[in-house]
């Protein structure tokens, strides 16, 4: 295996809606920044991979237009996933592992504001059984939270505590969309949005994106004083048939964590992509993270949730803490689909 590291991270200042910009205008400054931070040009990049969704853009082949922000002339080697940018990073990592590139630019972004996000996300469901019922993503997550409450895995107060802690942490995140939180008691006094979920249990709707540069070996050392080495990365998927699995668990997350080697060392920091409060509990369980592990110091997806970017941001947040020397070893997680159906886990480590 080649040593591959994250060497540069940039993201938008996340907002509920960015109506004055189209997608390419929104993501271009992030791509420019992620390259300028390491004094690189697109000609220094061996592979470019993006994650986005036409369903969010409301436009076919929207990602092709966003390539205008990269500078694809002379022609570049390029790919796209209709997934979170974390999976685009996985593809780029494979490209480097297979020796076809030494460096890669990865980005993930969306404008969720033009559409009705919970309804748009229902199109991820199978077209025969669940899809025609149009269950929205919040209602689906509500079923999961209810199942956990019924099993005694969590309480509504603990869910509110997760929301409070995440959004309080986000106060120190300059890119966060939702910063600060009323007290847990005040949160619990609010009405339900989709019983048993209250508004604070749900990630905000966000327009935004993230870009990352990864590089192999000496190139990584050249571009960063303390690269965030990807020591393990794996992704797994559970059945799309929610009736066929225990929705209070995410076995694919446990398996990805095992393959990525999460338990092989101390975890200083973990960034988990949990768009609903109760899902953080599931992920802590599946990844085997103890209460001593600092989770989502950035505020996580509850502070800003640009679909197709939120998972890549988790990798970026962990990498930034390692590159800054604030953490030695960290875990990043991304999710896709409903109810933590598909999960990616990466272990990042500093040089020492």
């Amino acid at each position: 295996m080649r040593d591959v590291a994250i060497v540069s991270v940039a993201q938008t200042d996340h907002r509920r809606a960015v109506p004055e910009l189209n997608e390419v205008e929104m993501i271009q400054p992030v791509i420019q920044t992620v390259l300028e931070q390491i004094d690189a040009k697109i000609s220094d990049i061996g592979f470019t991979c993006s994650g986005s969704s036409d369903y969010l853009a409301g436009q076919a082949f929207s990602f092709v237009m966003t390539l205008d922000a990269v500078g694809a002339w002379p022609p570049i080697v390029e790919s796209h996933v209709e997934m979170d940018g974390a999976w685009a990073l996985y593809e780029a990592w494979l490209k480097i592992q297979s020796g076809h590139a030494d460096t890669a630019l990865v980005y993930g972004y969306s404008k969720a504001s033009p559409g009705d996000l919970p309804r748009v996300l229902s199109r991820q469901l199978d077209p025969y059984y669940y899809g025609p019922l149009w269950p929205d993503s919040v209602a689906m997550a509500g079923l999961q939270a209810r199942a956990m409450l019924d099993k005694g895995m969590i309480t509504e107060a603990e869910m509110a505590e997760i929301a409070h802690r995440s959004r309080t942490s986000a106060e120190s995140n300059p890119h966060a969309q939702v910063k600060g939180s009323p007290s847990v008691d005040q949160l619990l006094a609010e009405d339900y949005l989709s019983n048993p979920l209250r508004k604070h249990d749900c990630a905000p709707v966000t327009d935004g994106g993230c870009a990352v540069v990864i590089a192999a070996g000496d190139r990584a050392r050249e571009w960063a004083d303390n690269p965030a080495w990807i020591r393990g990365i794996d992704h797994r998927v559970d059945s799309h048939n929610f009736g066929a699995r225990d929705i209070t668990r995410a076995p694919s997350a446990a398996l990805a964590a095992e393959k990525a080697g999460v338990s092989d060392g101390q975890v200083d920091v973990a960034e988990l992509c949990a768009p609903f409060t109760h899902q953080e509990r599931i992920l802590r369980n599946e990844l085997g993270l103890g209460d001593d592990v600092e989770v989502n110091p950035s505020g996580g997806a509850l502070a800003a949730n640009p679909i197709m970017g939120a998972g890549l941001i988790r990798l970026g947040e962990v990498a930034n803490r390692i590159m800054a020397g604030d953490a030695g070893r960290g875990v990043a997680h991304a999710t896709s689909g409903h109810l933590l159906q598909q999960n990616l886990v990466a272990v990042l480590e500093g040089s020492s």
Partner: protein
Amino acid sequence: MAESDMEDRSTSTMPGGLWTQPSVSVPDIGDGEVIQRITEPASLHYSYTPGRAPTRFLRGLAEGKLLGGRAEGHDAVYPGSRGMDPVAARPTVESVEVGPDATVTAFCIVHIGFGEKAPPTPFVSALILPDGAAASMYGTVLGIPYEEVRIGMRVRPVWVPEEELGLTSENITHWEPTGEPDVPAEQLKGHM
């Protein structure tokens, strides 16, 4: 069906008990009519905003002007830009009027039209390079038999009446020949 298909079975490589395949059973549905096809209507609604550069372009069109975008410190002007100089990968922050006279750089003869405003087939859909622009834009070429359209042919836009101008690309109904001599193909290198 094999006997093993009828049993609840664990899937290999998966943690014990978490993934099991339920046994296969086919319910008896009697002699009722077999439903082979259903229709499920589906729709999603978007409130789309064009962004900064396309907004400038559309406002230009509303004034009967063809605008392009230019990035700071770069020469190329992109008509109807999405907002980027795609070679420099920088935003086109400056608006520059291009055309309206232009040159056909590529075309196809359309035999199957679609949309309420499609002209009678066959007609020509072309890539059209406005004077002063670095890239072509799509347009319909009318006012000449379709078999006489050629690369290098000079054309100009035909606009809707001034009182009908709006924030739409439909302001230009089509392009028609100017009658000027053709531009030699060598001069269109890089634009075809």
